[in-house]
């Protein structure tokens, strides 16, 4: 980690085995409003992030906040991975339960209705209830 006070920028070297490139991007996106960001280095060995504050922003603060953001997104990513199975199960339930409910409801309707289904259709089709568009 290098702080260049005279040129007003910070260089942060990141080990991609600790923080994946995806995490570095996420942290960089958060800083687009606060700093000019440039990514360099080797995506497999060493990622170099150059941060240049846009306004009066201390270089130390910028560096520390970026490191915090890296940690934040690394944690977020690991949580997403850990809860992936549970999330999938919940999604499946959320998608399938209405279908199950619908089937059960249809079954109940079929059981309760004992009349002639043609009577319903005959009422709906009755021309007595029809109102011409002109009226």
């Amino acid at each position, binding site marked *: 980690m290098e702080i260049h006070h005279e040129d007003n920028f910070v260089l942060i070297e990141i080990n991609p085995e600790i923080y994946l*490139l995806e995490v570095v*991007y996420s942290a*960089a*996106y958060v800083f*687009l409003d606060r700093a*000019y*960001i*440039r*990514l*360099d*280095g*080797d*995506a497999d060995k060493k*990622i170099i992030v150059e941060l*240049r504050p846009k306004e009066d922003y201390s270089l130390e603060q910028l560096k520390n906040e970026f490191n915090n953001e890296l940690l934040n997104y690394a944690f977020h990513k690991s949580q997403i991975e850990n809860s992936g199975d549970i999330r999938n199960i919940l999604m499946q339930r959320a998608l399938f339960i209405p279908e199950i409910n619908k089937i059960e409801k249809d079954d109940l309707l079929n059981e309760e209705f004992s009349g002639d289904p043609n009577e319903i259709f005959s009422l709906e089709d009755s021309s007595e209830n029809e109102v011409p568009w002109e009226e």
Partner: protein
Amino acid sequence: MMESFETFLNLKFYNIDSIEESIEDFGEVCDIFFDKCSGEIKVISFDAETSSEEIFREFCNYVLGVMKNNQVI
């Protein structure tokens, strides 16, 4: 006289399509010449008050913004 700034963008980190999209958007304020193979980039500012280097920094952020948007979509 229009000043120019030459540098490079590491293509391991910047998506070429996003760079090209950004170049189109920056067309009104500067000329940007970009070599797809080497990542070399040359910025020529049209505006005397804004240096080519400043535009380049904005450009880098803009490319990251485009990449983010494309990822979300």
